[in-house]
């Protein structure tokens, strides 16, 4: 990549918003490279950007750094933090991580080309926030082993019968939890204007030993946030076999419409 040798910095894009309105904060707002975050605007739409050093954010270096989880975490959190700041002041379209231009003129050209779709995408998230609900299945200890009350020795045939009954019971517990989770998702959807289902996270990613059965994202009108939170609480009481965790409000990461210029990442059907 020849440009890396001729340029010192590149322009990292955090988000697109409407107003050229610097986020108000007492502290200095710094981005992924510790740089000052600034706005590039065409008047109609505005990009939130920062100038990053190419020796740290050039193609090869960045690729390597993103594959190191500690550095990925640092960059991802800094990126997310800027998007949150902007989102507190106005509707925001979060840019996916590592959207980088050679200079501001490329950003301006992108904003001009994508103006219509950016404006309509901004309109679709205005006054709305994303909430995340992860639903876990609580384990049912009684289904894990044959009844322990039978202390007397039992025949092999009797053991197999009990064992089979236990497996059947466990399967029924799992299926019941899946149905309950789907029903909870439907109830949450009635309070939301749009929904997405992310793939349930593996235990090592969620950090929770319980199996995750549903990982939902919900776009909710700001004035209905309290309704949404109450619905989560009610569902938690209604379905004792499930544990629900609520995150948010998030910038509307999961609800991006797009076209050729602003492409929506290809994803599995929800």
């Amino acid at each position, binding site marked *: 990549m020849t440009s890396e040798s001729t340029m010192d910095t590149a322009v990292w894009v955090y988000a697109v918003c409407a107003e050229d309105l610097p986020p108000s904060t007492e502290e200095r707002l710094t981005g992924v490279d510790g740089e000052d975050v600034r706005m590039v605007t065409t008047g109609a739409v505005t990009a939130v950007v920062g100038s990053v050093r190419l020796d740290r954010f050039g193609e090869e270096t960045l690729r390597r750094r993103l594959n190191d989880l500690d550095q990925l975490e640092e960059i991802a959190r800094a990126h997310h933090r800027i998007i949150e700041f902007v989102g507190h002041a106005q509707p925001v379209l979060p840019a996916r991580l590592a959207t980088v231009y050679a200079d501001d003129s490329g950003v301006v050209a992108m904003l001009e080309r994508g103006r219509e779709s950016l404006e309509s995408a901004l309109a679709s998230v205005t006054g709305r926030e994303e909430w995340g609900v992860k639903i876990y299945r609580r384990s049912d200890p009684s289904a894990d082993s044959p009844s322990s009350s039978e202390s007397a020795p039992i025949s092999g045939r009797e053991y197999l019968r009990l064992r089979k009954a236990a497996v059947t019971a466990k399967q029924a517990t799992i299926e019941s939890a899946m149905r309950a989770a789907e029903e909870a998702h439907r109830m949450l959807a009635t309070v939301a204007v749009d929904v997405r289902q992310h793939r349930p996270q593996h235990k*090592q990613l969620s950090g929770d030993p319980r199996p995750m059965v549903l990982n939902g994202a919900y776009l909710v009108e700001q004035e209905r946030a309290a309704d949404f939170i109450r619905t989560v609480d009610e569902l938690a009481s209604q379905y004792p076999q499930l544990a629900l965790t609520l995150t948010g409000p998030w910038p509307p990461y999961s609800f991006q419409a797009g076209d050729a210029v602003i492409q929506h990442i290809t994803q599995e059907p929800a």
Partner: protein
Amino acid sequence: MTVDPDRGRAPQHSAAPSQSTNLGDILERVLDRGLVIVGDIRISLLDIELLTVKLRLLIASVDTAQQLGIDWWRHDPWLTNQQPPAPLEEGDRIQQIGARAERVPVERP
């Protein structure tokens, strides 16, 4: 009460850094969601797609990633300080197929 507010809920409209937010939740969103804009510098989609696929494999199943020879996470304390991968459950098998399918386009030159 089964909602765990302290686990995931960030302070609402707080300007404080969201350091407490679960990293998996952030990665899921900044890598896999969000506006995709064509940038100038090609750090870009292919490399990030690769990373995204790796992350997706992780989300689907660590065992699957292992079988496919992807072990970048193995040396990361963030992942390895927890218990070893659980055996595959039915859902993982289904996701395994999805993970394989997702990987195919990336492998093409």
